[in-house]
């Protein structure tokens, strides 16, 4: 492959992230899809789009399964093959990957991939329980281990092995809330301080409320086509030049390492090799900060810094807007919000904006190469994608 485009993104859409009271997931998705259609006037959705893949994690939220067809219907696309992909918080990372399979197979020239989740109408206890379903039942959920609990287990081990601190984790939250303050679609658009995080109530020690991503409603989508067809639809495509997806044991306790995600390292290795790029070539990245600690761990898994130095990297300010490698310019899962099924393609949406110069107040100057990192469960799934734009 060696850096050749696998597929080309010709449009993208994102609903407002936040509380959408009185709306169903499929209705929220219609806002994302409308933006993507409007952004690409040369595309005739009913004529050109040949397949849909939709990331969606939980039937429990709305008592609604079969989301592929439901969402295609409400997007005005009934008739095309529409399939739901589920890989917990990486559900739409998996949808993106599935779209790439479809285009490269030759079965569909142009596809729409996306994701949606409607969560805020449920209580925190219910959401905690639904999210935990993505972890191992008989040895994790059954013993009262929650989702924050699993990442807290990794954070404790990382603190012990590398001296990572709660202050460093808090700095991830401060940075991502700052970025979200520049993103009108983010759930929380207010800045916070290190003290806001440290003084917030404990969820699963050492993780506190402000270390956690938000319970959010939202939807996202990307329209992709064969690279040779991209110019039919747009003058400014963004190419996906690397795609990696990997899995790991469902139980955290069976893994060799408690301080890194092997799935993310494998997915990153595949994606970098396909793209013929190194971590230092990345200009802007969206990583899976479901908890602040996970952003620190992702710096290491993605090769942005040496193993054990993630805490130092956040302290350096290099991953803040204006730094060498801005991370989570959208505000990330932490502050933009984490409507679970929508997250993977929402990350791709942000990179699409960045690489086409449409990121407004949070634009990374001269960004040409981007990366997304989407983690499912406690890391039993990870997807990593590398993006490049050729236009000035």
């Amino acid at each position, binding site marked *: 492959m060696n850096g050749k485009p696998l597929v080309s993104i010709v449009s993208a859409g994102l609903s407002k992230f936040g509380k959408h009271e009185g709306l169903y997931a499929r209705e929220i998705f219609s806002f994302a899809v409308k933006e993507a259609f409007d952004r690409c006037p040369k595309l005739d959705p009913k004529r050109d789009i040949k397949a849909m893949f939709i990331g969606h994690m939980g039937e429990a939220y709305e008592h609604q399964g079969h989301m592929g067809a439901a969402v295609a219907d409400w997007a005005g696309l009934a008739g095309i093959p529409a399939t739901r992909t589920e890989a917990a918080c990486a559900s739409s990372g998996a949808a993106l990957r599935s779209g790439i399979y479809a285009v490269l197979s030759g079965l569909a020239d142009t596809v729409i991939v996306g994701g949606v989740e409607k969560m805020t109408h449920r209580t*925190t*206890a*219910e959401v*905690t*329980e639904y999210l*935990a379903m993505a972890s191992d039942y*008989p*040895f*994790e*959920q*059954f*013993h*009262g*281990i*929650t989702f*924050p*609990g699993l990442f*807290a*287990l*990794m*954070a*404790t*081990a990382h603190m*012990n092995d590398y001296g990572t601190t709660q202050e460093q984790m808090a700095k991830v939250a401060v940075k991502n809330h700052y970025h979200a303050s520049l993103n009108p679609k983010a759930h929380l658009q207010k800045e916070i301080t290190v003290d806001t995080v440290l003084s917030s*109530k*404990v*969820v*699963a*020690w*050492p*993780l506190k409320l402000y270390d956690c991503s938000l319970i959010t409603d939202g939807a996202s989508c990307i329209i992709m086509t064969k690279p040779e067809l991209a110019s039919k639809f747009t003058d400014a495509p963004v190419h996906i030049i690397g795609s990696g997806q990997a899995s790991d044991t469902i*139980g*955290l*306790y*069976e893994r060799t390492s*408690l301080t890194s995600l092997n799935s993310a390292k494998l997915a990153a290795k595949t994606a970098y090799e396909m793209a013929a790029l190194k971590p230092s070539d990345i200009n802007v990245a969206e990583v899976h900060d479901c908890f602040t600690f996970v952003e620190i761990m992702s710096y290491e898994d993605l090769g942005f810094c040496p193993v054990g130095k993630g805490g130092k990297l956040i302290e350096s300010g290099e991953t803040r807007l204006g730094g060498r490698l801005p991370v989570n310019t959208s505000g990330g899962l932490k502050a933009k919000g984490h409507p679970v099924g929508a997250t993977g393609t929402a990350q791709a949406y942000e990179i699409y904006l960045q690489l086409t110069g449409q990121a407004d107040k949070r634009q990374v100057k001269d960004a040409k190469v981007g990366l997304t990192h989407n983690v499912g469960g406690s890391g039993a799934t990870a997807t990593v994608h590398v993006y490049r734009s050729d236009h000035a």
Partner: protein
Amino acid sequence: MNTQAPFTIEQFYKFLTQAKLMAGKCLKCGKTHLPPRPLCDRCFGQEFEWVEISGKGHLLTYTVIHVAPLQFQALAPYAVGIVQLENQLKIPGMITGIPQEQLKIGRELTIDFAACAAGQTWPQWQRYCFKPT
């Protein structure tokens, strides 16, 4: 030892009611699985023997859960951890009888087969936990 018992998670929990921590050892490649599995993930073997594992180990990592699912709310805050047993085997579980400030990676723990309290309808397994050695 009942060699006819199926190498399943269900059977693992049944052995707990006899105060036994049992793993499945693959007869083909020798890998020990905790929990047992009906298909060896290393060599795809399907024949195993039961081996009893010592309930003594040390704490690899831990957390204290404050925001709990509905079923566990009455217990919160509670500590859970991953315990390193013999033969590179690890299992997670609740840790009882240790104040949070005394939880420490490396601390020696022993399995406690007594059921921890938490009401549930399915599955009706006995829930082990870990206590100080």
